[in-house]
């Protein structure tokens, strides 16, 4: 086995071969699925913890503060301490709630984001499922999360929760359109919905550069719409603290609250990964078509580092949004989507189709 950090294909194939040689086919598949599940779960938890820390630090710097700085170097272990605090907390029992729905709502939210992460390519060969409908799959499973939010708001039997859930539902359902349509713009350019083919298609330049202005407009629209879809500020009116205490998760405590919290951060990570993969080339290094020497230098940086770097760049932009803009009202939110983003998107798709038809892209 030759292991390299530039291409994980041989590594994963080696694991596959060892398992199939030593186990019956059924158990080999079962073990493989368990390995992938545990790996993604670990990654999920670690990234979630890191994102909470990053959010607090970024927020602190934006507001000219220091942020967490007591637990570990630069407060790095603060979120781990917070996690233990959340695990120890009592799960408050609510008397007049619909207990069954109240208990399954956090799981629906977290399973939706967990399903989406399975289709994301992390590096060359490090890709759990490579569907031919990759982008459509991610849009489909991430649309399930809103059901959990609606159920949580209703089953808590609390006015604030219900209002928060309604706002969140209206917001996610309308912004899903813009997310989908801005991705369609790039699907037209790429000619495929498969994530691996999309990444390969950017070997001679990322789509945001290859697609001229329409690709750039699609990128901006995707950033705005996906920030709204993940219920993050300035679109966080579903959990507006000053009006609704905490919105749909007001009545949740302990680990169930942590599930909502973690799912929110992971959804941000997932949309950032999709933006990085579809617009900025995913794990593909920065290549310029024709500049062989330059491309070779860029290839020295491992794909996984490129992927993480781009994803965190987009996450940083989304945090910047949150701590810069004031929260929108519900009417402003819906006006922005239905009167601005959606028409821009539709015209943009037409322009992109025309450019692809005429062969004007690189």
């Amino acid at each position, binding site marked *: 086995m030759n292991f390299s950090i530039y291409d994980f294909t041989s590594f994963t194939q080696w694991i596959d071969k060892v398992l199939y040689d030593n186990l019956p086919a059924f158990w080999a598949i079962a073990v493989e699925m368990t390995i992938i599940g545990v790996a993604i779960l670990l990654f999920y938890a670690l990234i979630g913890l890191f994102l909470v820390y990053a959010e607090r630090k970024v927020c602190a710097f934006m507001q000219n503060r220091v942020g967490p700085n007591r637990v570990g170097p630069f407060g790095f272990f603060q979120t781990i301490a917070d996690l233990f605090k959340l695990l120890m907390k009592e799960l408050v029992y609510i008397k007049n709630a619909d207990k069954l729905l109240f208990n399954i709502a956090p799981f629906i939210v977290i399973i939706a984001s967990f399903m989406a992460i399975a289709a994301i390519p992390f590096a060359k060969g490090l890709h759990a499922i490579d*569907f*031919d409908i990759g982008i459509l799959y991610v849009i489909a499973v991430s649309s399930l999360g809103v059901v959990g939010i609606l159920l949580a708001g*209703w089953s808590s039997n609390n006015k604030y929760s219900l209002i928060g*859930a309604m706002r969140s539902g209206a917001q996610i359902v309308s912004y899903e359109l813009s997310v989908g349509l801005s991705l369609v713009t790039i699907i037209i350019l790429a000619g495929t919905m498969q994530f691996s083919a999309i990444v390969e298609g950017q070997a001679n330049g990322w789509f945001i550069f290859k697609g001229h202005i329409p690709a750039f407009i699609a990128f901006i629209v995707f950033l705005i719409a996906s920030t709204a879809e993940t219920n993050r500020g300035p679109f966080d009116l579903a959990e507006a603290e000053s009006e609704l205490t905490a919105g749909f998760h007001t009545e949740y405590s302990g680990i169930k609250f942590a599930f909502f919290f973690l799912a929110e951060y992971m959804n941000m990570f997932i949309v950032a990964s999709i933006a990085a993969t579809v617009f900025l080339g995913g794990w593909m290094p920065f290549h310029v078509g024709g500049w062989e020497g330059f491309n070779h230098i860029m290839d020295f940086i491992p794909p996984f580092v490129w992927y993480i770097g781009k994803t965190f760049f987009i996450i940083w932009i989304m945090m910047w949004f949150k701590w810069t803009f004031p929260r929108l009202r519900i009417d402003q939110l819906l006006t922005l989507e239905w009167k601005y983003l959606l028409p821009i998107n539709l015209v943009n798709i037409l322009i992109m189709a025309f450019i692809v038809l005429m062969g004007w892209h690189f």
Partner: protein
Amino acid sequence: MTPNQLMFAIFSAVIIIFSILTVTSRRILRAATYLLFVLVATGGMYFLLRFNFLAAIQLTLYAGGIVVLIIFSILLTSHIGDKLEQPDLKKIIPAFLAAAAGMVITVFTILKHNFPQEVAAGTDRTDIRVIAKSLISTEKFGYALPFEVISILLLAAMVGAIILAKKRND
């Protein structure tokens, strides 16, 4: 038992159990949630058949769209304490007969149909490009006309909904 058979058994069990719970539950939002599980398991069944496109459409439209719409309207109209009444026998018996008749016809058709033993190579997976082309094709087996007719129907429905929802000025 192969993994595929195991997954088939799990999905079928989920579909059967939650379908029954959907119609027997007396709390309307729980019924909607059980319906969500049925639709998601059906989507899983399509994934098992490697019909990925249909599976994703099933998840987006039914689970992510229609169920969300149903839950939304329940949220606006019903209170958490509300419980549906137990329907009387006069309604249960015809409903049961209709459902049983539907099941008998379906099972009879499936058992009678002569399924091909072998699937021709390359046809076990529908290419998304084929679906896309046939949707806008005007030739035989093209769906351009039905597609446009459905869009006009949808437009008419939307205009109707807006007129109904709009307040009269008089």
